[in-house]
């Protein structure tokens, strides 16, 4: 009976290891392949930690398995051995993990800087933010600059407004200015691996580069009230031409004057 239980508790860690081995290739690990350039770097960090943790897991489970098996197969006449601890062992299993942790923290600094440090944002993104994303209970209000102008902090006459749908060009770095109108929210796009808290009073720039055209979910990741669960938007990544067309159409719609075929002009 003891052998059965020993094998039972050795079996499951083996299964866990197997699942861990096959999970990434089957897409069980992440929501999808990363769809942005930063996403690859972030995923790399996750895999690094997974690797380290897996090694540690193998080591600890092997020790446990050995102890179980030895206990199961031993004759029951042997006396128990009492230990007062081993100072050496304790030093080892404190220093080794701390080295590992320091290693991880140093390794990820580069990626963190790429995400957060504004001077490391790609120039083209930093110069021309594509939109201001104003998080609001419980929707995302988007303000694009008037076509042909740069986004200003204050709303400008001619700025284009939309809600819950952000259009970005694909395959180029873009930056959005994240703000919130009321409480804390968080700009989180799982497939793009972008996540940034929106803090009241701050304008926080976020950059990302979408690699593949398509629609991506944007959800709120900071509990902001009863509607937090449904505070969703779409990020639509398309070619430069399609984004231009979208802006033109948006401008025309925003200037609609209800007269069917009259041209709608705005002239300063």
């Amino acid at each position: 009976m003891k052998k059965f239980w020993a094998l039972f508790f050795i079996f499951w860690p083996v299964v866990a290891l197997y699942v861990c081995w096959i999970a990434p290739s089957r897409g069980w690990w992440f929501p999808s392949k990363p769809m942005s350039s930063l996403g690859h770097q972030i995923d790399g960090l996750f895999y690094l930690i997974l690797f380290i943790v897996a090694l540690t897991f193998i080591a600890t489970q092997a020790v446990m398995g050995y102890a179980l098996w030895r206990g199961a197969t031993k004759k029951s006449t042997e006396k128990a051995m009492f230990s007062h601890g081993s100072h050496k062992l304790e030093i080892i299993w404190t220093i080794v993990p701390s080295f590992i942790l320091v290693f991880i923290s140093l390794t990820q600094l580069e990626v963190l800087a790429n995400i957060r440090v504004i001077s490391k944002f790609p120039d083209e993104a930093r110069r021309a933010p594509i939109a201001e994303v104003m998080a609001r209970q419980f929707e995302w209000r988007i303000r694009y600059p008037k076509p042909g102008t740069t986004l200003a902090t204050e709303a400008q006459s001619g700025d284009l407004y939309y809600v819950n749908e952000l259009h970005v060009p694909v395959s180029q770095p873009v930056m959005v200015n994240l703000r919130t109108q009321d409480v804390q929210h968080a700009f989180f796009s799982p497939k793009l691996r972008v996540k940034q808290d929106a803090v009241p009073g701050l304008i926080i720039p976020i950059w990302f580069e979408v690699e593949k055209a398509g629609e991506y979910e944007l959800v709120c990741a900071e509990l902001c009230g009863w509607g937090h669960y449904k505070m969703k938007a779409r990020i639509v990544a398309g070619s430069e031409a399609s984004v231009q067309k979208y802006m033109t159409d948006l401008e025309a719609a925003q200037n609609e004057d209800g007269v069917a075929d009259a041209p709608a002009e705005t002239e300063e």
Partner: protein
Amino acid sequence: MSLTPSLNKLSWVGLLAVFAVTGCSNNDSSFVYSERTTSLMPEAQDGIPGEADDAPGVLGVKQLLDDRFGNPQNLKAWLKLPVDFGGTQASVSEIVTENDQFKVKLAVEEGVALPEAPKALEFITGECIGETIAVSGWDAETGEAVLASAPTKQPMAGDLCALDGGGVLRSGRVLYMRHCSHCHGASGDGHGPTAEYLNPRPRDYRHGVFKFTSTNDMSKVSRDDLARVLRYGIPGTYMPSFLLLTDDELHAIVEYVRFLSLRGEYERKLVNELAGDYSAKAAQSRVADGENRTEIVAELREFLAADLPDTATELGDELAEQWSVANTPEALIIPSVARVPDSPESRRRGRELYLSKTLNCADCHGVDGAGNGPQTIAFEKNPITNEMYNEPGLHDVWDNLNQPRNLQTGIYRGGRRPIDLFGRIHAGIKGSRMPSFKNTPHEEIWHIVNYVLSIPFESEPGATGVAAPVSAPVAAAVAP
């Protein structure tokens, strides 16, 4: 080892009972009756049971309403209403019973398409009223349905029926309860659980009035307007955007909102017929004036039996007409001239008109558009009840404080397109104190629109063109 502290057997039984009973809660929702309905005499609300041959039983307002609209678990789709309940309406043209199969040939009205693969047939009139039977075979060309089982009674030619009826209403109800009812309430009365924390309050649909429409001042809201509000939300308020719902879901919610609004309006109109003479207060004052309560009840019985049914039909027809016309192009506001191009001259002209005595926008919206005109601090009376409001300022038809818009913020609740602003000025804002200025030349309205759109970007308040006039000293509240 025991997991539990020692307790005697009796308290265990008690605890078990508590655990079991928490499962038996009634979570059914119900439509509320408006305050005006519940202030009627009880006989008017609940009806009067029959007593003799010359005193027949009559139904009260509540029953009339329930018969036509049902309750949220059992909705009634009243075909008079211009609501898309889902499915196809048809009438029986022929019944064939051959080889054990019960076949029904259906005819639809002109312009209505036969469905591709209906699953169920419900009889609406005739002997089999209320029966729903699965459709096992269907010929889309001829409109012949083979029913899975024969109906219990015999249908006749001319009976009305519905194929897959009620789908839109059903999904509308489920979606509405999930997304809308916590603010707007299960009956659309604007009194959901979260409503008390919101300013401005969520819309009470039961007046049949919606503020932000593209229709003229005498028309109801159109389906497009409601869908627009759902899609883009109302900035500056708690109404969020539901852009991510599919078109079908949005359509279902719009139809359910119209259903609730029609219910509220029908209730209101029915009660209007009765409130003058048969409200509880009126009954009280009539008795105080010397009338006999039994006589009042007899009079009410007569009224409910003889007069109200015809009036109710008329009211239903009226509502149906108003709500369908709102969706036609005739109801839309279409400017007669294209928008005057935005220019400093146009804005200056707009400001002139804004300040002019003809339109006097500044009276409510303030000299610089800050929404602080002199109207906003005067006390006024509710024009219907003649009671003074508690707070100073303007009030809307929902009795909420209705401050004139601060035009300096650049937040436009009804939409920021030029046509939206044109509509606000031309048709006013229904239910609120913003009047319609439909007799102002359209070109002048465009000048004002250009000015209003430029107000948030003025270098300083009132900087556009014309110098602000010296404001008249504010009148002390003149209580009428």
